């Protein structure tokens, strides 16, 4: 299909105009609105005790959820790409569930298990453990929503590289741990890294599931995204913009990392 020059420019204009109206201009405007009263005001509003606590909590939750899901992701990816076992198709489909289920349903599901009247709630309360309206609930919700990323990035890499090198290592007498550490892990490292970046972005940005289980107690169970909504509802628009701008910067850093990694992968430096 050789599209004539006027047509090509026309299509390009329509595509870019759509992207501008939906994406570029709104995001740009948020940065402009954030900094229109100077950087000092922004700094003050993201360094209030509540904001600092929200930021710390967000990082803590991410620091728990991402390593656990990375470990799960690598193990499951190897099982899915290399193993032959009963129920593989089912497990493969179940891993995608967190992508498809509404975050609100995820939050509700945790309340129904760990809440006051949930399946495990009463016995946990007796043991003095509070999950819902507390940090463990936020951690569980975050693990749930970010579960599939590493598996989904690593499985295709494992399938593509095949298992010849692993077989060779085994033939030469390497144990499965040595094979994993010296052969498998180096060849999937970019896939893992990519999955980790996506997981981190999702953990920091999760809102719906966390908002159901957190209880939004200021200085205790507020994450950054919850803080944005709270400030917005309390008509603290400047504060909401400041926290949003911080989150948007994290998102842009994520994109930058993704782009750089894609370039390395395409260069064949796998």
């Amino acid at each position, binding site marked *: 299909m050789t599209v004539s020059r006027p047509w090509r420019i026309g299509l390009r204009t329509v595509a870019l105009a759509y992207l501008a109206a939906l994406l*570029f*201009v709104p995001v740009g*405007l948020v940065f402009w609105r954030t900094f229109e009263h100077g950087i000092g005001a922004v700094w003050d509003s993201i360094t209030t005790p509540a904001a600092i606590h929200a930021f710390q909590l967000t990082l803590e939750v991410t620091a728990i959820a991402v390593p656990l899901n990375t470990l799960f992701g690598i193990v499951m990816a190897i099982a899915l790409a290399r*193993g032959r076992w009963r129920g593989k198709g089912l497990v493969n489909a179940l*891993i995608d569930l967190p992508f498809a289920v509404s975050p609100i349903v995820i939050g509700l599901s945790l309340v129904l298990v760990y809440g006051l009247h949930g399946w495990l709630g009463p016995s946990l309360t007796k043991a003095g453990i509070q999950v819902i309206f507390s940090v463990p609930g936020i951690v569980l919700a975050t693990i749930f929503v970010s579960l599939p990323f590493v598996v989904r990035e690593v499985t*295709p890499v494992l399938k593509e590289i095949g298992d010849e090198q692993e077989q060779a290592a085994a033939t030469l007498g390497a144990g499965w741990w040595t094979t994993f550490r010296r052969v498998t892990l180096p060849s999937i490292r970019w896939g893992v890294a990519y999955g980790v970046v996506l997981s981190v972005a999702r953990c920091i940005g999760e809102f719906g599931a966390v908002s159901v289980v957190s209880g939004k107690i200021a200085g205790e169970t507020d994450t*950054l995204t919850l803080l*944005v909504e709270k400030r917005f509802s309390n008509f603290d628009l400047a504060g909401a913009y400041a926290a949003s701008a911080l989150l948007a910067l994290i*998102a842009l850093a994520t994109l930058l990392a993704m782009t750089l990694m894609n370039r390395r992968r395409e260069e064949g430096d796998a």
Partner: protein
Amino acid sequence: MIATSLTGRGTAGRAGDRPPVAARARRRVTARRPAGAALGLGLGTLWLSLIVLLPLSAVVAHAFAGGLGAFWDAVSSKQAVAALRFTVLVSLAAALINVVGGTLIAWVLVRDRFPGKRFVNALIDLPFALPTVVAGLVLLTLYGSRSPVGIDVAFTQAAVLLALLFVTLPFVIRSVQPVLIELDREMEEAALSLGARNMTIFRRIVLPNLAPAILSGAALAFARAVGEFGSIVLISGNIPFKTQVGSVYVFNLIESDAPTSAAAVSTVLLAVSLLVLLAIRGLGRWGARA
């Protein structure tokens, strides 16, 4: 990249989803897995069950705890039906607009050349990386009551559609792009030399090749739209019978301490997501054959 990884068409998976024949043949010889791998698989499955399956089954169990009648009452209440119907319709609309817009943008990003293309291409994933509540605030800034361009759609059905278009933007683009890159241009050149016009080439050659990718991207966008909450909650105003969507309705039920009704409506949302997930798997297989 979520879109591509779900359809099994990720950058890495492109060369072939199946392992090479030699590797497959040898697999039979080494079918016995070491104890460590079996343990890993067991722990992984246990983790998946504890984190995902146990909570989701609690939702379904609670939905039917009061019997089938109570479930039916909860999902057939006027407000629930209105919210669910609006959710499905607006998600379909978003998916359809994505089919056209996403394919167009993917085509421009693959076949056209202009300064700043790489930059635009990288920014396409921004809706995946940006927290949804920030997305809502972002749209409200340009299209809300303080809009600098004088367009105020806040608290209307159009606002919900706008929010869904924002969060689902990357799906179709990212699933069509790799297929379009791989598409053999000789077919198009042959058609051109045989006197076919552009429209004919697009309709008879390009579109059929892209169809599986377009459809699975649209299905992913639809699934995402049905469950979307964060970007909608600020901009929709949550007006019952008008702008209230399923997920926000469930959220209200939870807040007003009606967990059984919330579980019932959630079960309907869950069923929709499962159906779409199955459809996507089917489409993935079709795409692999095409």
